[in-house]
């Protein structure tokens, strides 16, 4: 993990880091990755990837309308709203 990678990941996550934070994170992330890296010592050839530790199938839902219809609640946390829409700074290209 180098500083450039930290900056790239921060940018992709829309995080604005100070130089001090970048240095700290570079060390912390390196440690985390090193710790997780131990897993590569396990031989996983011929082992199927495990999607869940519980033996259940993906639950499915019928095609029925039973939600929605509460625009007021959806908009409650909006920084700004008008005519039922979220209002944000212009993002058009």
């Amino acid at each position, binding site marked *: 993990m180098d500083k450039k990678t930290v900056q790239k990941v921060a940018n*992709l996550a829309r995080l604005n880091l100070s130089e001090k934070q970048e240095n700290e994170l570079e060390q912390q992330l390196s440690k985390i990755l090193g710790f997780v890296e131990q897993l590569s010592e396990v031989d996983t050839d011929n082992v199927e990837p495990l999607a869940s530790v519980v033996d259940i199938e993906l639950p*499915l*839902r*019928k*095609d029925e309308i039973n*939600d*929605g219809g509460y625009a007021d609640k959806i908009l409650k946390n909006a920084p700004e709203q008008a005519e039922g829409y*979220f209002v944000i700074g212009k*993002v058009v290209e």
Partner: protein
Amino acid sequence: MAKTIQGESAVWEMVIGLEVHAQITSQAKLFSGAPTAFGAEPNSQVSFVDAGMPGMLPVLNEYCVEQAVKTGLGINSAINNVSVFSRKNYFYPDLPTGYQITQFEHPIVGEGAIEIDLPDGQVKTIGITRLHLEQDAGKSIHDMHPTKSYIDLNRAGCALMEIVSEPDIRGPEEAVAYLSKLRMILRYLETCDGNMDEGSMRADVNLSLRKVGETKFGTRCEIKNVNSLKAVQQAIEYEALRQLEILENGGTIDQETRLWDPVKMETRSMRSKEDAHDYRYFPCPDLLPLEIENSYIKAIKETLPELPDQKKHRFMNDYGLSLYDASVLIAERARAEYFENAAKGHDAKLAANWVLNELLGILNKNNIPLEDSPVSAKQLGELVGLIEDNTISGKIAKDVFADMMETGKDAGTIVEEKGLKQVTDTGAIEALVDEVLAENPDNVAQYKSGKEQLFGFFVGQVMKKSQGKANPAMVNQLLKKKL
């Protein structure tokens, strides 16, 4: 524009692949129970799942799975027994979760192919790379305020099928033919309404150029926002010439995402997307892999309707229709049904002519959809029957048909009421022929001295005397005998 463009230094070939987003015609969204209807009040069809509220869990809509499998079978593709949902991470205001749930390494549908019909009558096979299930994003509206964008999340979470073609398409005509055929298949299957105006079917175009004979692909650009068949044609034409100019001047193409501007009629770079291709896909921890049994796939296969190409071939084989007539008739499922009902028990070619040339002509002219036609298929069939058994001539039939369109009455009733029944009585026609010959002795003399083109004049006169009701074949026959 054909498949190639002539540059100054070389002839260039267009290599095109299309990514089509087709909204599944489900009542509720892919992972929530909020409705999907178009045109509702903003944010009124949003659940907390769609809005990306903390702690909300997606639950997959089984109907959408069924529609994806059905579509996969309709485009002759392999169905995968196991598929996996992944998160595609990016930031955009109309994506409240910060990621789109989609399928990446393991799509529900794998490789397949469809046939496309080209304007010159050729048929070409276009490969399908994959079809996967994913959620739609919300909608950003930029023209409601000078400095603000408005966000409506009603579309967020609606189920989409992304259908990716192989780079088998050459030129704008093939691209349009591919989209038309794909839309036709989706409409036959009723898995997507194919309505490009309402955005329920959208296309992204990947285009690159290479010199003819070259086997490697050139660098491609992806063009977004191409939302009608016309726009696909125009965007490809513009983009091909743009790339040609760069390549002919020794430049290189930057791989990038471009936006089609239908007002300025140009594509332009979406610079903000430069970073965006680092999507950091990973399996969605909220969803287990989707497993489907072969018996499930088989059961869906049994519900498939006759598809456009099958119908086309059957119309040509069973009814003896031309490729062109068959292609036009199968373009809409309702149209094909109308034709088959009209042709039931009658001369199919004649019925096809009436549907294509008379019925659709008048309906299109007056902007009436086929479903609202004042003349039913059965009624048109009856009219065809009257022509077949010589009750009326083809010419009179057109007048009867116009009357039917106006009044909705049956053909038989109109013929009866107006006394339009064709005169097939030899004696009656003979009398008319004699009258005409007696009234035009000069013409008869000229005809007999060799001016044979006058024959048509006599036919016309007899027909006029009969008010169009004499059987033309018999008129011809009797005139020949008498002259």
